[in-house]
């Protein structure tokens, strides 16, 4: 009950006109940042952080976290309309969101994405409100072995998703791992596969690869198909929002599962990206129409968006209560807290009640404001598809180039993006799936790091991955996901044999 009283006090703080104004500014800026691929929430917050030093800390964090929510919403827009994920966690949204837009249903896809984002965030905020101390403790149980198990599960729940021959999937994934290995090896401190090229010190940034593989690759494909932009006949009015809303409750099971996956990933803290991939993979297996995933299934938009937003929101919990950021953006916010003189950690909830609960209240209000802002804009976003391809394609190219440049302020990255674009086109032409490649680039180095940290700690024994209940359970789940189709087949054979 004390939590509720605190929360209402928080609402009073967040509802001051000054703070409401900051909230709306933050959401709008965030959506713009999310739409620009490459700029990303973390960069956006980092750029704007110094501007907030003259504000009271509570107002500052309200504005910055609203930028964060805005970016989470905005990332979905370009993924659905142009197949260009604005943020890493929007990659999985492209798998079904973009086909939906091509089928003339961009409004439905956008509405589903925004609404799911909101549901995910709301679920996570309620969790933070009610069980914060309990959940925060859970994060402490995650050492390197547990983290590796989580990544393992993410990979396994994704293997076999594509209809392509398994060897093509494996080849694509291995290519991703190889690309992820370039740069500094964080365990030994040695440079790997850089061949003395300064530009490669940083390795291949995931965002540049994705902008190239998806965005540029897609433009090349469309050019080949005769410059027609499919989906141009989209209906554009606000009614589409209501129609989609009527459909959504039927997918409550997927939503709930994705919320849980998202919260779990955000708290551990593995982050929004594995959450969205894992949620998509699991939904594909368990959904009734799972076989249609990848062809424009609305459930394939709901699953990753819900999980990404739930994870993005719950990532703030370990940041506040433990001082460990669950996402890059949370890391920048953490820096902000320290500068404002607030020490994140177990004592923050006790000593800075007004700040913590003001922030939590702003999560409720910020997400609601964000939902209203983006939903009213759905027709405008969808109308973009009516612009002739000859006009929109150069604009997308410029947008992609700006995005690639702004990741590290380097023109080399723009070249790299074009190379990835050609690669993406060729892979698509040869029917190699891009998703496993991208997944391996995103999580490859993290998984490797966790794996090697675990083995260092266990002095080389693989037993560490089955050394306690938690890690064994996650590993076992991963193995089940990996061999799911074999298990299914064996089961049905057994049944026919019995019959």
């Amino acid at each position: 009950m004390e939590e509720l009283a605190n929360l209402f006090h928080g609402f009073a703080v967040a509802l001051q006109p000054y703070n409401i104004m900051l909230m709306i500014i933050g959401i709008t800026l965030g959506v713009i940042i999310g739409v620009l691929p490459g700029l990303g929430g973390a960069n956006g917050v980092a750029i704007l952080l110094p501007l907030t030093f003259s504000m009271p800390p509570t107002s500052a964090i309200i504005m910055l976290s609203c930028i964060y929510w805005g970016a989470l919403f905005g990332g979905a827009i370009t993924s659905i309309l142009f197949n260009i994920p604005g943020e890493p966690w929007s990659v999985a949204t492209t798998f079904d969101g973009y086909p939906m837009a091509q089928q003339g249903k961009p409004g439905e896809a956008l509405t589903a994405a925004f609404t799911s984002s909101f549901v995910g965030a709301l679920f996570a905020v309620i969790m933070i409100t009610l069980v914060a101390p309990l959940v925060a403790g859970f994060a402490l149980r995650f050492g390197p072995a547990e983290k590796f198990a989580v990544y393992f599960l993410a990979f396994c729940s994704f293997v076999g998703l594509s209809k392509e021959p398994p060897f093509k999937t494996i080849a694509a994934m291995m290519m991703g791992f190889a690309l992820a290995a370039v740069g500094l090896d964080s365990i030994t401190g040695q440079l790997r596969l850089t061949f003395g090229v300064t530009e490669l010190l940083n390795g291949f940034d995931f965002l540049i690869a994705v902008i190239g593989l998806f965005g540029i690759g897609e433009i090349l494909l469309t050019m080949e198909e005769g410059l027609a932009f499919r989906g141009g006949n989209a209906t554009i009015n606000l009614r589409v929002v209501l129609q989609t809303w009527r459909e959504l409750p039927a997918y409550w099971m997927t939503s709930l599962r994705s919320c849980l996956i998202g919260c779990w990933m955000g708290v551990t803290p593995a982050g929004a990206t594995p959450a969205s991939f894992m949620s998509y993979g699991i939904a594909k297996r368990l959904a009734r129409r799972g076989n249609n995933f990848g062809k424009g299934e609305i459930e394939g938009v709901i699953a990753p968006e819900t999980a990404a937003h739930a994870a993005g929101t719950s990532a703030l919990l370990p940041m506040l209560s433990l001082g460990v950021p669950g996402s890059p953006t949370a890391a920048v916010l953490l820096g902000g807290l320290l500068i404002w003189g607030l020490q994140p950690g177990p004592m923050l909830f006790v000593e800075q009640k007004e700040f913590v609960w003001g922030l939590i209240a702003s999560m409720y209000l910020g997400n609601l404001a964000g939902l209203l802002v983006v939903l009213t804009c759905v027709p405008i976003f969808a109308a973009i598809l009516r612009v002739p391809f000859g006009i929109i394609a150069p604009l997308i190219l410029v947008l992609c180039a700006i995005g690639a440049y702004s990741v590290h302020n380097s023109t080399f990255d723009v070249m790299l993006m074009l190379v990835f674009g050609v690669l993406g086109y060729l892979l698509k032409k040869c029917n190699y799936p891009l998703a496993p490649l991208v997944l391996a680039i995103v999580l490859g180095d993290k998984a490797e790091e966790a794996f090697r940290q675990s083995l260092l700690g266990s002095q080389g024994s693989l037993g560490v991955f089955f050394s306690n209940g938690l890690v064994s359970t996650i590993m076992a789940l991963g193995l089940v996901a990996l061999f799911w189709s074999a298990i299914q087949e064996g089961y049905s054979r057994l049944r026919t044999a019995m019959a």
Partner: protein
Amino acid sequence: MKPFVLNVALAAIVMSCANGTASRAAWEPVRPVEFIVPAGTGGGADQMARTIQGIVTKHNLMKQPLVVINKAGGAGGEGFLDVKTSSGNPHKIIITLSNLFTTPLATGIPFNWKDLTPVAMLALDEFVLWVNAEKPYSSVKDYVDAVKKAPSGSFKMGGTGSKQEDQIITVGIEKAIGTKFTYIPYKGGGEVAVQLVGNHVDSTVNNPIEAVAQWRGGKLRPLCVFDAQPMAYDEPIADGKAWKDIPTCKSQGLAMEYLMLRGIFMSPKATKDQVEYYVELFKKVRATPEWQEFMKNGAFNTTFLTGADYAKWVEAEEKRHEGLMKEAGFLASGN
């Protein structure tokens, strides 16, 4: 009339020349200044750079904006090489940590601090030996006895990065007490502290700011500080203990000292005026209450050095790192 006009014109020319020399004497940035951070967002160097940026903005200390840019690739090598290749561009400064020495030594990238122009040492970051508060050892002696009693290599030390400051200190401790740790590298200092709280490692050498929250929360216990004298801050943090009450490691029989540079360099071939401008700027930054608060929160050693003193300090520290890393076998094969 003519001579008068001429005189006026001459006077105007003379005046403008005088103005010209005056403005040359006191150099000021004419474009936005890039503030390079050779580390990722959210880390210690990044926090300090962004604090400085905030202070400069709030107190209007510069006419041009100061823009923080992270170039973390290759353990910061990306950032150092970027500044190195910006010779003669006075609109680029870089904040350094120990990777100024460790990255070139460990990776063999073509860089040495002498490629840059030293500006000022802002502060030194302390290192403290931490253990989980549930563990029975309350002094360095208990801890050292426990490490020695355990089988060699079974004690896990967590730290930030590989072949960087944390691992150098770990090797120093190993040498001082004659045993082996298993060193496990993580990406960031906050993560290391939480791994210690979760008992996934047995001890860490976190900077004060990375672990203070867990200390106040009663989860971690500081054993000693790797400095020649105790830290200066006497405000109680946890259990009535202040930073000042943490003994030095040396006084507890663990002979290892290590401080990390938080200093500013600028691009090669900077003129004296340009260096002078930034030195004055940082003097103003140091005088603000926000900076002093930041120093207190992180229990920094606030030594401030410029010019030849600073260069001398860096040179001595480079030699020391070379020695430490050579002994530890951390040098790249090319060196």
